[in-house]
């Protein structure tokens, strides 16, 4: 019988005093769903999903993320068509053990859906996913929040999806998957962004380390290293030059999962070229970096430079008020919430912002409706605050 791989986590959460700190995980990918979505589709797509192994239709990536079995995770229950919320409850239970109180999920296998060449397929899956979430998961599991997939190849379909599902309880925003996009549909999708802004919902931009999109690399490691920051940067460049922050000043946008260093690089580079050619970006009234400083970022996997000073400078440039904690669990490069304790240059209040309060702003949540998971509530009631017994236990990066 395999041993419980998460068994060390609750102790670390307690030792770091995080058992009384609200933690919102902005990016969790626990559930692969495409093959279970047939029942949420209308004919004729439903028939296709019922007659074929749907995995064979979804875009795949030949990369081995488990490094030939070296990396292991607790078994993930598959969504059960007769009890769709079971896998969601299991997800919440796993995440509660690492200290997470609320999770914003996005299905694993939808991360590459934008690579599918058939826009009707993308749209059918997007709509079925929204139905599955809003009918079966979100009403049953209040600790899960979700971003819906937007099939941006089809702005009309994206808009319809926002109108139909955007106000459902637990929906906190919409995801644009970058890896399949040859254009970023910034201007052509203005109506979509306007609809998200009107509803007070966030728009997230998320990439993945998809090796076939980077055939110039001989190893997956090369594609993984550059894919996330490259796609985020390409999207953000279009976003800034198109003046989207001027046109949609209340729209909260979030860039996911590319670390922190690319943000500072891009700020410096865009400011440099903008000063020389403002005519190319006539919507802008300020420096690009000022708009970028208003976006939100999940910075997992956070870089591990030799010196804490380098991280401090990155956070100062981005602004700790714009950083959201995200585990990316259960992916192979996930970050535990207590790994943030190495950000010793942040005050306790700033760390709490990163762990929860920034996410509350970004996703438009209400603090008074959020509570600690049960074991943390009990722990907080039993023991006094304090007592980080061993600050040196985690030695990743600079202490």
């Amino acid at each position, binding site marked *: 019988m395999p*041993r419980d791989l998460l*068994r060390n986590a609750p102790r670390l959460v307690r030792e770091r005093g995080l058992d009384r700190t609200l933690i919102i995980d902005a990016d969790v990918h626990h559930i692969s769903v495409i093959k279970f979505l047939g029942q949420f589709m209308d004919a004729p797509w439903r028939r296709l999903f019922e007659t074929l192994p749907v995995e064979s239709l979804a875009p795949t990536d030949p990369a081995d993320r488990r490094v030939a079995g070296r990396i*292991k995770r607790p078994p993930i229950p598959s969504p059960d068509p007769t009890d769709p919320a079971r896998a969601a409850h299991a997800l919440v239970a796993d995440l509660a053990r690492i200290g997470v109180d609320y999770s914003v999920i996005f299905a694993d296998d939808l991360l590459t859906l934008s690579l599918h060449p058939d826009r009707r397929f993308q749209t059918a899956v997007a709509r079925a996913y929204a139905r599955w979430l809003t009918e079966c998961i979100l009403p049953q599991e209040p600790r899960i929040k979700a971003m819906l997939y937007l099939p941006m190849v089809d702005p009309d379909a994206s808009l319809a999806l926002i109108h139909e599902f955007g106000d459902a309880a637990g929906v906190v925003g919409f995801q644009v998957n970058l890896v399949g996009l040859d254009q970023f549909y910034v201007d052509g999708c203005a109506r979509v962004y306007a609809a998200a802004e009107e509803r007070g919902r966030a728009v997230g931009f998320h990439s993945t380390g998809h090796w076939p999109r980077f055939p110039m690399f001989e190893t997956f490691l090369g594609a993984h290293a550059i894919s996330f920051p490259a796609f985020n940067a390409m999207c953000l460049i279009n976003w800034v030059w198109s003046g989207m922050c001027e046109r949609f000043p209340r729209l909260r946008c979030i860039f996911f999962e590319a670390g922190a260093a690319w943000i500072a690089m891009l700020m410096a580079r865009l400011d440099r070229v903008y000063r020389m050619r403002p005519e190319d970006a006539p919507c802008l009234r300020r420096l690009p970096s000022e708009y970028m400083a208003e976006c939100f970022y999940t910075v997992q996997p956070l870089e591990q430079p030799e010196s804490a000073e380098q991280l401090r400078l990155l956070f100062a440039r981005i602004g700790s008020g714009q950083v959201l904690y995200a585990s990316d669990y259960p992916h192979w490069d996930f970050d535990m919430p207590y790994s943030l304790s190495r950000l010793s240059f942040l005050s306790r209040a700033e760390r709490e912002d990163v762990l929860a309060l920034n996410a509350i702003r970004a996703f438009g949540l209400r603090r008074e409706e959020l509570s600690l998971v049960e074991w943390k509530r009990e722990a907080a009631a039993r023991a006094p605050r304090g007592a980080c017994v061993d600050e040196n236990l985690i030695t990743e990066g600079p202490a």
Partner: protein
Amino acid sequence: MDWRAVCRCDDVTAEAVTVVEVDGVEVGLVRVGGTITAFENICPHQAGPVCDGEVMGPVEVLLDSDRRMLDERFAAHRRILICPWHGYSFDVATGECITDRKIHLRRWKVREDDGVVYVTVPGTRAAHRGQEGSNAT
């Protein structure tokens, strides 16, 4: 020194880590050459159960005289323990991380006597840090 019997010597192999529990602390035992090394089962990266990971040789590359890659194989002269959470790899002889020499596993003192493996039981983490071979971070 407080030595605790934890298992039989035959239970400890070079192929995998044998995890035992001493006063609520998990310790992994692995045979290296003729001796046994003992590590606390907590990874210095993000506290994963490192001793639940695989033990194997690191992958090495063979180059020909033109320095073209001929082949890859598991190194025979060295064994590593790979943490199942993110794949950090530690030399089982020393506990040192092979990709980040600043970090290493906490080692516990261990001895074999009459077919039985004994480890020391430090009273506190602070005491443990003062011991030979442990992380002095």
